[in-house]
C-alpha cells in the first residue's frame, strides 16, 4: 500500500515534467488514443511511413526522372530494379517508374502509402477504406488497433515494435504485394497471408493446411495458374483470399461474424444474418446450400459450448477476486497500463469486457492461465472449426478442458492457502526487478 501511494504521489508530481521532458519534435510523438504517453522506436518510421517518414538527405541531391533513376539503381540496387522490371508496372504501355511512388527530388523521397497506390488503384483503396465501417477485425484499422491497445502504449516501444510489422497492413500495401514486383499472383496464395496469420492466437496457417481445402492446396497448389482472378471456376479449391477477398475485393470485413473469436457473438443478429448470406454465396461457388448450413450449425454449436466453458472459468476467477484471493492483487503489482482509474481503484481484470486482453503480464498465475486458455486454446479451437479442420478444433478443445481443470485445481489451492495465515505484502517482489523498472520508465 505504501509503495502504491508513493508511486501515485510521485507520478502526479512528475507527470507534467515527464510530458515536457520527453517532448521530442512533434512529428515523433506517438499516435492514437494514448499518443501523449509514448514516442515511437526508430523502426516505427518504416511501419507507418505516412506519419513518421523522414526523407534521406545524406546520400544524393538532385531531381531525377524515371530512366535516370534506373541508370544508377541498376548498379546500386540491382535486385530492386530486376524485381520492378518483372512487374506489371514496368511492362505497362506507359511504365510506372520510380518517381510515381517515391517522388523526383532525391532529398524528399517518400515511401508509398495506401493513398499513393490508390492514385492509380482507386477501387482497391476504396475497398480497403470501406472496411472501417465494419469495425474490428479489419486490415484498414489494424494500425489503430495496435497503437490504441493499452499494452502497446505501456510496454517499451522496442518490445512492441514487433506488433507493427503485421499491423502495418493498414499503412502500406507491400504486406501482401511484396515489393518491387507487387504481383497479384503472389498475393493470392495462402502463404502471402501467413507471415501474420499464424501463431497461438490466430493459427490460420495450421487451420487451413489441416483442412481438406488446405490439404488439396498442398498437393496441387503449385500446378495452378495463379494469374487468374479469384472467381468461380478458376480454382479447384478456395484459399484464404478466395473466400475472404472474393473476386479480389480488398475489403475483408463484410463477412466477419465471429470477431476473431475473442468475444462471444450472437450469430443470429440481423447484421450477422446478412454476413452469413455472403458466406453462403461464397460456399455456393462449389457446394450445395446444405453444406454451408450444416457448417454454420456446427460452428454455432461449437462456439456456444466454448463460451459456456469460458464464462464458467471467468466466474471462478471473479469469485476468487471477490474473496481477495488473487495474489498478487492489483494493488501489489504494477498498475494496469494507461488507466488513471486503476491507479486509484486497482482491480484485477477478468475477461474480454473488463479488458483482460491487455493484462497478460504483471498478473497472478491463475489470471495468466485464463488468458492462455481464452486467447490461445479457444482461438485455436475456433480457427480450426471455422476453417473446416475439425480434428484440430477437437485437439484444442482437449487442451481447453485440461487447462480449465488445472485452473480449477489452482483455485482450490488458492482457497486453502487463503485460509491459513495472514496476508503478507508481495509488493516488493512484484514492483521491483530489472524489466519491471524498465517498463515503468519506458512507456
Amino acid at each position, binding site marked *: 500500500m505504501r509503495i502504491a501511494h508513493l508511486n501515485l504521489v510521485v507520478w502526479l508530481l512528475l507527470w507534467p515534467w515527464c510530458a515536457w521532458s520527453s517532448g521530442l519534435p512533434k512529428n515523433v510523438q506517438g499516435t492514437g488514443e494514448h499518443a501523449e504517453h509514448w514516442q515511437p522506436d*526508430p*523502426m516505427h518510421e*518504416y511501419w507507418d511511413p505516412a506519419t513518421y517518414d523522414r526523407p534521406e538527405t545524406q546520400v544524393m541531391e538532385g531531381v531525377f526522372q524515371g530512366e535516370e533513376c534506373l541508370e544508377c539503381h541498376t548498379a546500386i*540496387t*540491382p*535486385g530492386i530494379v530486376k*524485381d520492378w522490371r518483372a512487374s506489371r508496372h514496368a511492362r505497362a504501355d506507359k511504365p510506372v517508374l520510380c518517381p510515381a511512388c517515391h517522388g523526383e527530388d532525391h532529398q524528399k523521397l517518400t515511401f508509398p502509402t495506401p493513398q499513393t497506390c490508390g492514385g492509380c488503384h482507386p477501387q482497391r483503396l476504396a475497398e480497403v477504406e470501406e472496411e472501417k465501417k465494419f469495425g474490428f477485425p479489419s486490415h484498414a484499422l489494424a494500425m489503430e488497433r495496435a497503437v490504441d491497445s493499452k499494452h502497446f502504449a505501456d510496454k*517499451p516501444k*522496442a*518490445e512492441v*515494435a*514487433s*506488433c507493427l*510489422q*503485421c499491423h502495418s497492413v493498414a499503412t502500406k500495401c507491400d504486406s501482401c504485394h*511484396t515489393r518491387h*514486383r507487387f504481383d497479384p499472383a*503472389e498475393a493470392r*496464395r495462402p*502463404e*502471402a497471408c*501467413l*507471415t*501474420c496469420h499464424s*501463431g*497461438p*492466437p490466430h493459427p490460420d*496457417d495450421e487451420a487451413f493446411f489441416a483442412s481438406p481445402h488446405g490439404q488439396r492446396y498442398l498437393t496441387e497448389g*503449385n500446378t495452378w495458374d495463379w494469374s487468374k482472378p479469384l472467381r468461380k471456376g478458376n480454382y479447384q479449391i478456395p484459399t484464404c483470399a478466395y473466400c475472404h477477398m472474393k473476386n479480389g475485393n480488398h475489403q475483408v470485413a463484410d463477412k466477419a461474424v465471429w470477431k476473431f473469436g475473442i468475444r462471444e457473438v450472437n450469430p443470429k443478429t440481423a447484421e450477422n444474418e446478412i454476413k452469413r448470406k455472403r458466406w453462403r454465396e461464397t460456399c455456393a461457388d462449389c457446394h450445395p446450400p446444405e453444406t454451408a448450413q450444416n457448417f454454420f450449425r456446427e460452428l454455432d454449436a461449437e462456439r456456444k459450448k466454448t463460451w459456456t466453458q469460458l464464462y464458467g472459468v471467468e466466474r471462478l476467477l471473479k469469485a476468487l477476486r471477490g474473496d481477495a484471493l488473487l495474489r*498478487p492483487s492489483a494493488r501489489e503489482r504494477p498498475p494496469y497500463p494507461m488507466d488513471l482509474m486503476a491507479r486509484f481503484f486497482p482491480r484485477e481484470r477478468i475477461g474480454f469486457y473488463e479488458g483482460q486482453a491487455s493484462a*497478460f*503480464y*504483471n*498478473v497472478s*498465475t491463475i489470471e*495468466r*492461465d485464463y488468458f*492462455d*486458455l481464452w486467447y*490461445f486454446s479457444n482461438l485455436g479451437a475456433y480457427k480450426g472449426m471455422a476453417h473446416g479442420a475439425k480434428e484440430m478444433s477437437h485437439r484444442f478443445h482437449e*487442451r481447453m478442458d485440461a*487447462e480449465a481443470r488445472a*485452473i480449477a*485445481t*489452482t483455485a482450490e*489451492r488458492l482457497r*486453502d*492457502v487463503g485460509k*491459513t*495465515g*495472514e496476508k*503478507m505484502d*508481495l509488493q516488493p*517482489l*512484484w514492483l521491483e*526487478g*530489472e*524489466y*519491471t523498472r*524498465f517498463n515503468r520508465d519506458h512507456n
Partner: protein
Amino acid sequence: MRIIVGMLWLGLVLIVSHVEAADALPPFSAEGDCLSCHRERDVALVAAWEKSRHAQVGVACSACHGTEHQGAMAARSRRNDACTGCHQRESGSYTLSKHGVIATLEAERLDLTQPLKEGNQRTPTCAYCHLHAGEHDAGAGILPLVSMGRVSAPDDAARAEARAAPCRDCHSPRFVDTWFVTGDRMVEIGRMKVREATRAAAQLDDQESRNILHRMTNDHLRNVRLGVGHQSPDEQWWHGHPALDGDLLRIKSLAGDLLMRSQHGASSSPTPSREGQRHFK
C-alpha cells in the same frame, strides 16, 4: 598456322576432358576424399570451414553439397533444404517471414546455379546470409545479435558490420541499421526479463522454476532472437515476449509462494499450471 590451330584444339580437348573427368568422379563418402583435393584448390574456403562450428561438430562438405560430383554441388548447398534437415528449429521463423514465403512460392524459379550475389536471387535463402559471399565459416558474421549498449567493443562492431552486410545487398543501409537498432533493443528487453526472473528465483530450489528459467533462455528468448534475425513478427512477439511475460510472472508467483510459506508456514501453495506452457515454440 595449322599447327597452332591444332595445338589450340588439342588444348581445348584436354581442358574439356579434364573438366569431364572431374565431373565423372565417383561419389565421395569420406570427407577426406573432398579435402584431399580442395585443401589445395580452395585454400581459403577450407580454412574458413575449419574455423567454423560446422567443422567442430563434424558437419563436413557432403552434408551440404551431397556426394555426387556432377557440377550441381554448389546449387544443392544453396537450397534451403540443405540446411533445414539439421536446422529445423531455426527454419520455422524464416519460413513464415516474407523472405521465406517468397522462397517457398518461387522455389522452382530461383536460379540457385547463380552465385549468392546481389541481384541473382529475388529472396535470400539460408546460405545467402549465413554463408554470405561464400563465407564457409558459416554464420561467422551473423550470430549473435549484439546487445543494446555494448556495441563499442571492436569485436562487436565488426560483428555488427558483418551481420548487416547481406541485408544491405537489397535494403538501404538506413533501413538495415534501423532494423538492428530496434531489434537489438527488443532482444535486450527479453534478456531483462530473463535476468529479472533469475534474480527472483534466487531462493527457489525446485524443478518447476528451473524448467521455467531453462525455457526462458533456450526457447522464448531464442524465439525473439530468431524473430528479429529472420524478420518473423510471430516469433518476436507471440512465441517471444508474451511467452517470456508468462514465464516471468510464474517465477514471481513461485517466489511469492515461498515467501508466504517461509513467513507463515502455509502448508500448501498453488503451483503454476503446466498447461499454459504448451502454446509456444
